[in-house]
Every structure is written in C-alpha cells, then in structure tokens.
C-alpha cells in the first residue's frame, strides 16, 4: 500500500461530485475517464427512512498491484518512495491489460490520448506539498488525505464523541463534523 491514506467519511458525503470534477480538471480529461468516482447505491432503510449511500472509489494503490503486473511495457509503476501507483504515459501503448486485470476497474481509458489514466493521488501536487485535487475541493470536507498514521480517522473520532455524548445525555452538535475534517488537513 502507499504510505498515504485517502479517507472518505461516507456519512458526510452528499455526492456533489466536486471531487470527480476537480480530478478531471487537474488531469485535463474529457467526459469519459473518471480516475476517482462516487458510486451511488440504491437506498437502504435506516431507521425506517430510505437513505442513499455513496462510496468513493479512487485507486487503492495496492501493495502488489494487479495493474503493474499486467502491464507489458512497464508504463504502470509503483513509486518506490511512497508506493503511489501511476502510469508513465509515454510508455503506455493502450493495450488495456491493466484495466482488465484490476479487480476494481480502477485504471481509466482516455479516448482523447488513447492511453490509460488513473488516480495517482495527484502526485505532482503531493510532491509540491499540496493535497490531491479531490480533497482540496471537497465541499463537505468528507475527504481527507495524509500519511496513513498521521491522519485521524473521522469515524473513530466521531464515535468517541458519540459515546461521550450518550453518556452526558445530549446529542452531538453539527459543528463536530467540521472538526474532523479540519484536523485531517496537514
């Protein structure tokens, strides 16, 4: 796995798709490829009410990636210093082997360049000390990014607050949602 963690705090996600839009903008992509994607699931019943659920699907940056092994030209690579899996575009010849091999269908086909494009945690931004495009522009702050063990998990934190709140017999104020996100920022 890469040394980074890109967390999605699902309960806070409103599926505004700002992450997808900014991801595409940053990578200069047309309508087709979505290096990160919000997958919406059919409503499930929560306390008698229907509720839509969203899963954020970037790349998992596997420890031993299917795509890297499947790539015949060495275009798909894992960065040694931080484990980011990325495509070196000049080596990609468009055989789509990585797309077929990835169990999550993560590598994306860019029909404009006839090459594969995928989530690389915006490594150019990360190298410049910035956050990935999706995280930077997330409207609700439900996405957080950082070195894995340095990022507090909003779910854990929220659960802890929840326990405390139950003890003191009051409900959690809404403002707590933001505190989770802001702590996630470096």
């Amino acid at each position, binding site marked *: 796995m890469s040394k980074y963690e890109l967390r999605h705090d699902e*309960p806070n996600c409103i599926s505004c798709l700002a992450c997808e839009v900014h991801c595409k903008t940053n990578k200069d992509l047309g309508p087709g490829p979505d290096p990160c994607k919000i997958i919406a699931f059919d409503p499930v019943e929560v306390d008698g009410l229907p509720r839509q659920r969203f899963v954020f699907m970037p790349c998992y940056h596997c420890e031993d990636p*299917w795509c890297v092994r499947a790539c015949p030209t060495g275009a798909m690579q894992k960065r040694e210093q931080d484990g980011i899996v990325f495509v070196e575009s000049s080596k990609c010849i468009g*055989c789509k082997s990585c797309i077929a091999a990835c169990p999550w*269908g993560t590598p994306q086909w860019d029909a404009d360049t006839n090459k594969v494009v995928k989530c690389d945690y915006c490594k150019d931004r990360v190298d410049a000390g910035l956050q990935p495009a999706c995280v930077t522009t997330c409207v609700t702050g439900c996405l957080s990014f950082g070195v894995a063990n340095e990022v507090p998990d909003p779910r854990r934190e929220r659960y802890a607050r929840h326990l405390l709140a139950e003890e003191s017999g009051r409900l959690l104020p809404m403002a707590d949602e933001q505190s989770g996100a802001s702590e996630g920022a470096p």
Partner: protein
Amino acid sequence: MSERALIPSWLDTDATVLAGAEPPAPTLTGALPGLARAQPLAPVERLQRVRESGLAESSGAGESVALTWRQFLRGHGPSSLVIDATGLDVRARGSAAVLDGAPWLLAEGLSIAAGLRDSRTVELRLPAELSGHEAAFLNAVDAVRSLAQISTPRMQVEVRRDRRPGYWGDARSTDDSRLIHTPETWCRIALLFAGESGPDASLLTLRRGMKHRGLVELALPGQLHSQIDAWGGGVEASGDDAVLAFDDGLGGFLPLSEADIACDPLSFESVGIIPAPSSLMVMAEGVCVVNQTQRALHRHWLLADHDDGAPVRPLLARAARLATEVTLGRGEPGDLVSLDEVALELGAQGLAAAWPLRSSLHHYREQWEQHVRRESCPEGLCLEHPVAPCHGTCPANIDIPSFIAHLGSGDYRATIEVIRRDNPLPLTCGLVCPAPCESACTRGDSNGAVFIRPLKAKAAEHCLTDGGYPRPELAPDTGKRIGIVGSGPAGLTAAYYLRTYGHQVEVFESQEEAGGMLRYGIPAYRLPPDLLDGEIEQIRVLGVSIHTGAEIGSLEMFKRDYDAVFLGLGTQKARLIPIEGVHRDFVLGGIDFLRAVRSGETVRVGPRVVVIGGGDVSIDVALTALRQGATHVDLTALDQRRDMSASPHEIENAVGEGVQLHPGWGPTTIDADGAVTFQYCEQTRDADGNFDPKYDPNRLMTLEADQVILATGQGTDMAILDGSDVEEYHHGFIVADAKTLMTDEPGVFAGGDGQHGPRTAVEAIRSGKIAAAGIDAWLRGAPMDDAVGKPVRRDDVIPLHVKARDRTSLPRAVMPERSVEEVLDEGNYVEIEEGLTDAMAHDEAHRCLRCDVCIGCGLCMAACSEMGIDALRLADTTQNRLAYFDFTRSEACIGCGACTHVCPTGAIHFDDDDVSRRTVITGTVVKEQPLLTCSECGAPTQTPAHREYIRGRLPDHMAALLERELCQSCARERGDHPHIGATPSLATPVMDMSFSKEES
C-alpha cells in the same frame, strides 16, 4: 591526392575473383610470412603480441581483439573461427574489397588464430549482397593446401549465406566456442604478425555527400575533420553543419562542426556514434535528423526480427515507437525524457540501436525539441501525414487511392468524379500516360506496382458508354471571357477548369481537329481518334466552344477580345540536330512525320528507315514507320538502353515488332546515297550529370536508309508572340511565373510544352490546371490558392474489403495485347492494347495498399512488439515508409487493441460485433477471434487470448479474480468487494451502520 594513396597497399582493389588461386610467393613461408613468424609462438605469446599492438575490431563496437582472444583462449572443447562479412551498411565495400583483394592475408590471419585452440572449422558469414565474393578466399584456401602439400584438409570451410548483421553492438565475444572477426580484422592480424603494418587504421567507405567516393583508410589517431577534408576535397554537401551519418545512419549522426575528434573507438564512443564505422555518408545542412533516426531505429528493429531477438525487440520497438510519435507530431515533452532513458537502456544492453538514438538526441537536441513542440521540421517531412506516393508523384496529383477504391466497388461515376477533380482527360491518360505513379507505387517493392494507368481508362469507358462523364458542378457565371490558344492537353485542361470556375471559355486550334499533340503526335494504335473525340466532347458539353482551323495571327489583336488569355501552344516543330546532310530531302522530322500521318496525308517511307532519337516520340515514329511502308527500321539512341528516356515497356514493344535497336550511337553524317554514319558514344553526361557526350571516333557504324527520321527534339512556333511583351527563353519556350504561369504581359498565361518544353501529356495537364487557377485568381484579384499544384485528398473512401490471401498474393495484371501479326501491317492502326477486362480491373483495384490511409509509420508494429506479441510485420520499402505486404502473418494477434490505439490514421482498427473481434488493416481482416462478455451486464470485454495473456502475467491468486469476467464499470460498481462467485446483495447495508443513529 590520388585515389591510389587512399587505399592501403595490402589491398589489391583491381583483383579479379580468381586472384586467390595464385599464391603471392612460391613457398609457404614466402606466401604467408605472418604465419611463419607466428608458428614458433605459443598461444599466450600470440595473445601477448596482439595485446601489445592494441588492435581493435574494424567494425561495430571496435572492441579490443586481445580481449576477444583472451576470452576465446579460456574456452574448452571444439572451436571455430568465423569471418563475419555482414555489416550494418550494405553499401559499405570494405568486406567485399578484402574478400576479393586480400584472400591470402585473410587465410593467413585465420591460420594464425587456428593455432590458438586448434580450431577445425572456419565459418564465412556472407550477407546476400556479397554472394559470390567468397570465391577468391576459397581459391586461396585451396592454394594454401596445395602449397603446404596437405592432402586431407584439417580445416573445414563453411559458407553461411544470406546472413544479416546482428543487432548487438558488442556481442561478438559472448560465445567462447567461436572467434569472430570481420574480414578486415583477420587481415590486420596477419599483417601484425608479418610486421608489415601498424594496426592503427581502418577501412571506411565514403558514400553520398563526399566529393571522393569509395574505399579509403581511416587513420585512427588522426583527426576526423582533417581526414574528411583530405579525402579528395572533403564534403560535397554545403554548410558547416552538414550531417555525418555513419553506417547508413544505423551507426549514428554527428555534425561536421563537432568532427574535431580522433578516430579511435573510444573517441567515437564518447560522442555517441559507432566506435568503428564502416561507411560515412554526408547529408546537407537542414536534413531532418529526427526522421533519419526514426528510420534507423525501425531498421534496427527489423534486424532483430528473428527468434533470437525476442528478448530485446520490445525495447527496440519502444525506441522506434517513441521516435515515430515525435516525427508524427504526437510527441510530448515527456517522450524526450523517455527516449533518453531508452537510449541509456539500449546502451546498457549493448544494442547497436543505441548509436543512432544517443548521438542524434545529443547532437540534434534542438531538432528533437522542435518536433516535440510540433513547431517545425527542417525538411518539412515530419509533423504531418504524408500523401500516398502515387498521389504525390502524379504530375496532375490525381487522388489515386480514392479513385481506385471507388473503382473496386464498381462505382465508375464516382471514380471519374475523383479523377476529374485533377485531370479532365481520364481516358486519354488511361491510354497514353507513362504512369510515373506506378514507378512510385509502394507495392512495387513487393509483387509489382498496382497497374494504375488502365484503371482510369476502364472507368472512363464505362461512363462514356453509359451516357458520358458525370457533369461537374459549374460555378455561377462570372461574365468573364477567356481565350485559349491551342487545344492540346494543356489548353483543354485549362478550358475545363476555367469553365467550372464559371468563366466563358473559347478555344482556338490551328489544325483541322482538336486535341493538339494528343491527336497529331500520338499514333492511333495508342490513342484511337474516336476515343479522343469522345473525351473532348465531354469538355465541349460544358459550354466550351472549340474553333478548329483557326489560326491566331497576333496575340495583341487576340487578347483585346478577352479578359485573359492562355497560350497552350505546344511544340509542333521538329528540331533537327546540326549534322552533315540533315537537310537532304529524305530526312524528316519525327513530329512532322507523325503529324502528316495523323492528318491523313499519304506518307510512304522505306523500305529501310533509320530513326534517330531515344525518347518516347522516337518509338512512336519507329512503329508508325513500320505501318507506313517500312520493312526494316533501325532505331538509334545516344544513351544506353537503361538510360533511354522512352519507357522500358515501350522499348520492349518496339523490339517485339521488329525494330532494330542501336543504343549508344551518335550520328555524324548523312550521305546523299542514304548511308548514315554513327560514332560510339562512351558517355552522355559528365560527373555532375550535365549533358556532355564523349565519343570514340574510332568506333563507327554505318546504316543504310531510304528515309532518315530525326526524333531529336521539338520547338514552338512563336510567330503569334510578335509585338507582345511575352518573353521567350533562349531555348525557344515561353517564360511564365512558376507559381501562377502568368507571362510578363498581364492577363496572358502560358503552359504546356510551349512553356516548359516537350514533356508528357500529364505534365501539360498539370500546367493547364495551374494556369486555370492562376487565371481565376488573377481575375478575382485574389492570391492563388497554395494547394494548387500540390496533392489534395479529394475523397475519403473506406478501404475495400479484401481477403488477406488475395491482398497478399494477387499479382499485377498483364495487359492483354493483340499479337504483332494482328496489329502490324501497312496502314493498320488497330489499338495494340486490348484494355483490362472488368474482372482484371476489379482485382487490380483490390491490390491497392491504400497508402493514403496506412502511412507506413510502423507504430502498430512497434506497439505489438512492445507487447511481446509481434503479430504485425511491415516491410521496409524504398520509399520513406514501411508497408504491409503480407497480410497472412497475424495469427499471433491477441486482439488487445494497442495497434489500433497508436495508429494515427485508423488504418488498423477493430471491427467488433457482440461475439467476435476482427483486426482489420486497410480493409483486410488479418485475424478474427471470439469476444468474451461481462458476466453481469453482458457488454463485450476482451478476447480469450488477451485474458490468457494477462493471466500469464499474474500469479495464480491474483489471476483467479479474472474468472469473474466483469467489464470495467461492473467491476467498479462492486465497490470494494472483489468477490469471486455470487454478487453480494445490495439490499444489505454495505457499510457499518453503527453511526446511523446520530444522523437520524
């Protein structure tokens, strides 16, 4: 400096093949002095001798001979000595010269090395080009045996033919059972032991771009630049930055300005080029080195195209692909970084392809960067898709691939529409054009050029019998009137296009009938008058009036009636050469003779006729003479047969009809009794290619004749120009602006033979078309369209569907011709050609390789090779492109699609339906295979072969997930649950629900 001094004395360049049979001295010691001195030395002492000399291999990486020997000496078991006569540049003459001129030294060098490990076999690796050059060496080996009085040979000599050079830069020493050297190195070993010559020189072949060409000796310690200047005057190519290309470009490139280096292998290596080059070529400043590098890289890939090369082909392919992407203007800045990496990797692996790539990236970085930024190519070759060679070569620039595709699908009207966009006379050209397009046809490198010429006639005939050509769209009437003088191909073409631009056009012809040289200069057995009439009628019906028998006296008077004038005067006057007796009454001018015959005058010649010429007209004259009473026709030409300007097929025809051909003779006198005396012409042109005949006055020939016909040139009757401002050349042709064809007199344009001199009909058509555009632009006061006179795509026709086997092996059609008995008779002007049948034309159209669609860049082949599949094979051609000739070799295709994604034109693509995938190259299916479908949504996913390919790259536990057979979007929809087996129900919450309370 004389040529002699440039070649070492041990190399006898005048040697004949049999030279090897004659020993240079009567005793073995005398004949092989080096061997005699080596014999007392033990193997390690011989090695020591070589090491002290510092002798290096004479080609390729120039590695130390001592190192190679040391490794060889460490080996055990049977061993053989190898003479490797292959080289990267097939035109390098070093190996051939040594095999022919120093067979004894070669045998001596081998004998010295044979003592190292008691080697019993000698292997001679010969490339196809040097076949036959082994004879002198084999003779020498036999002679050595007889001198030494050996009855049973201890050494076997094996000749391995058709060998190709290796793709390795320095792998000669990898196998320690073989000692491999070039012929030259073997000789230098012998010389070293004989103590005759130092090892500090190497043979080099000087090629194109050098003032002195041929073999020279490169002194290794000397400076390259000063040696280049010393060799007979240095480089021919201008500019300080002339480009030195080593080993035909395969060995790298160096600017002349950087050539102040020593010539030893290390110095060459340090500037990135081949350490021991075998040939040197110089290209002018401004040549596109990026393009040259790309070609070299493809050729290096082709060298590795056999079983042993499989491990290195993907890397060679990547180098070729990245370079090609850059030349096509598809490069990105990252590509140069990748190319640098590839160059390093090539070098690290010891591949020869590193030389061109490394040197070119280093010395011509700016060119590469300009290409990557898509700014400019110094030659204008790159950054845009080249047109098909036929299309670019045709003087009228007919969009040949498009019309052939229409013809192949049986759409004759569309065929004619496409042709007439550039040439209004498809039938005429289909019968008489010398077809330069066919000489350029890519397929000429395979099994014969596409027979393009008669296809035009075929479509035209169908349209004419079917009510005429499709009517072109005429622009609205402009009210301008244009007068055209002359109804030859130039005049008719100008009339046609001017009419389509909406002008009123009137054509004036002094002869009784229209057609100019088409009617009066081309015999009826090639262009029957009724067919010509039919074609001219197709121009007339557009509203062009043609006045025949109308002589124009003065241009001044004539032009007053018109807004613009076009002069398509032609060359109707025969020009006689100034020899004694040329004005005798039995001497005729060729074109006068043809015109008299075509005008219907009673002309009888013979029975013996001598025709003096060599061009197409002289052939027409000779064959016409045979039909006007001659029984014996001698045709003489100054040039040798291969240099005659008449087309080879025409010459063959003439010989077939009984014309006696005498190439290489120039006339001196014509006697009153009809005897014509000739002297032999040794050469017609000087070294610079200028006409400068040299005769042998002692070699004479006399031919008896009743008539002598001189087809030696034509001129124009310029009486019409008297009093006008239109200028004439001193050669007697009209001067006009090269771009617009306007003369010095505003509004007066000129084209055709009368302007550019006697040439072919299709060149007159070109000039008529340009003049029409020039006139139209001038009348509108607008600048002329730059595209006029350049090839323009007229249509975008989908390639014909042709079976792979047919596409590969259909041979060129043979024109059915009537037998000589049928066509050769007095007054018999039956057409010699019968024309292609519909079926033949159909097959011929299906042979077209569609070079307009497949530009032969080789990206598909490179991508396939990078995949490690190698299912695609383009062949190298003499054009600046690769080409598919064999469509039956793609069995290995796995249908991954890499080729279709790198193809810049869509020439190679997939034709998918729900269950199968066809790989199609310009209309030909080269592989069909099934297509798997998504187990959830049923969308097509990939071919089983591609899945197996991926499976082979994954360990079992990872490959197991491929069993799910999901399309990409279904795989993503599954979220983070990559289950094998049944899909989890989405009704159950997919995330931990423990937080739900807080939200409610």
